[in-house]
């Protein structure tokens, strides 16, 4: 039996009717057309489906849509501000941290959750924060550099 859920997605109130066996990932992609979160392994291993749920990054392939009822979801589509990319997104482009891009939404959201919590992370903290996000292309080094650069920008803004 379908259930009505209401939640906030990227700052907008959203209502949907879902079967309980639908995942949050499939609700976002198929019902809302937000295809930024990717379906990779479906088992919590790859992080391609990462979204931020009530401030915390989670694998949306392992969350039921009904479990998100009343909660707040941020996807990669909600990161830009009025068409202006988020500093982390800018840094990924400038550093060359994106190749095929399949892992990028998850990587960027994991990085955002990290920087929200500790704006000046060490390289180890960065590597830990993205340790659940697999990338088959970049070898991770550019991604770490991008997050370090983004942290620098964010700090620069704080100081000035």
């Amino acid at each position: 039996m379908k259930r009505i859920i209401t939640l906030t997605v990227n700052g907008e109130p959203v209502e949907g009717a879902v079967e309980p066996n639908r995942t949050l990932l499939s609700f976002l992609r198929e019902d809302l057309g937000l295809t930024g979160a990717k379906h990779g392994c479906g088992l919590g291993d790859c992080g391609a489906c990462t979204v931020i749920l009530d401030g915390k990054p989670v694998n949306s392939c392992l969350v039921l849509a009904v479990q998100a009822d009343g909660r707040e979801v941020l996807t990669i589509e909600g990161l830009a501000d009025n068409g202006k990319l988020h500093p982390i997104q800018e840094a990924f482009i400038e550093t060359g941290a994106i190749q095929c891009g399949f892992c990028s939404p998850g990587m960027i959201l994991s990085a955002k959750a990290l920087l929200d919590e500790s704006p000046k992370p060490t390289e180890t903290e960065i590597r830990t924060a993205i340790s659940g996000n697999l990338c088959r292309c970049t070898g991770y080094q550019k991604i770490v550099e991008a997050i370090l650069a983004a942290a620098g920008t964010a700090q620069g803004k704080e100081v000035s």
Partner: protein
Amino acid sequence: MLLPKFEYHEPTTLEEALRLLSELGGNAKVLAGGTDVLVRMKQKIDKPSHVISIARVPGLDAITPRDRHGVTVGSGVTAADLARHELIRDRFTPLALAAGRLGAPMIRNRATIGGNLVNARPAADFPPACMVLNAILKLKSAHDEREVPVNGFFRGPGDALIEPHELLVSINFETPPPWSGGSYVKLGARKTLEISMVNVAALVTLESADGPITAARIALGAVAPTPVRAYAAEELLVGKQPSEELFQQAGETGVGMCSPITDHRGTMEYRCMMIEVLTKRALRLAVEQARAWRP
């Protein structure tokens, strides 16, 4: 990867959750963080006709200190919350360290201590930590309530001393005595997102900062069908002055208590070697922390 169909229940009180469990019992699965049960359902290992989410039952996600005597951890507390909780890190160190090593950050944000214990996997991270802290599990059903020591809770892989109509409500820990220190070390092929090849928790109490060992507990995971306490190794330590040779002996004794398997993560011989090395390391770290004990 699709989930099989099921009926979904979302109780908002403990009473309602227990009533549902007693009515649906064997046909229902409790859903906490979902990082195990949803994976098993996707793989069609579990096909419950009812799923009972306990995420909206109030209080299950609370960490409640009891004066200085101990702490009560709700079964729905996540690994992420335990890993960063100051009291847990200070006084219940193996628990915080085990929490910080479970899966990756996204998994830790969902995975609960209750789900990890009930799951009863031989290589899981929370059991050894709970075992050296002598945790007591509180199980409730619609008409009954009982307390079960974690040392004795695990019966075999995936098999724990809990009935389908029971809910694990909370886990109780007594604060270790003064001059106690704890540790948790885990060996996997990679740093994160890895089921342990061997994991060791230790808790050591000293008479004073430079005194002999008055109590020791060691628990080993991934080395037998259930996590095990290395009682013989513990006994060997008591009354003695901590030293590298002593830790080495304890490690060797610990190996004798294990029946590890050979699988794609490691051979039996390698695991035995690692039990010795990790036990030694865990004891060293626990003693270091015990010596730095502050009231």
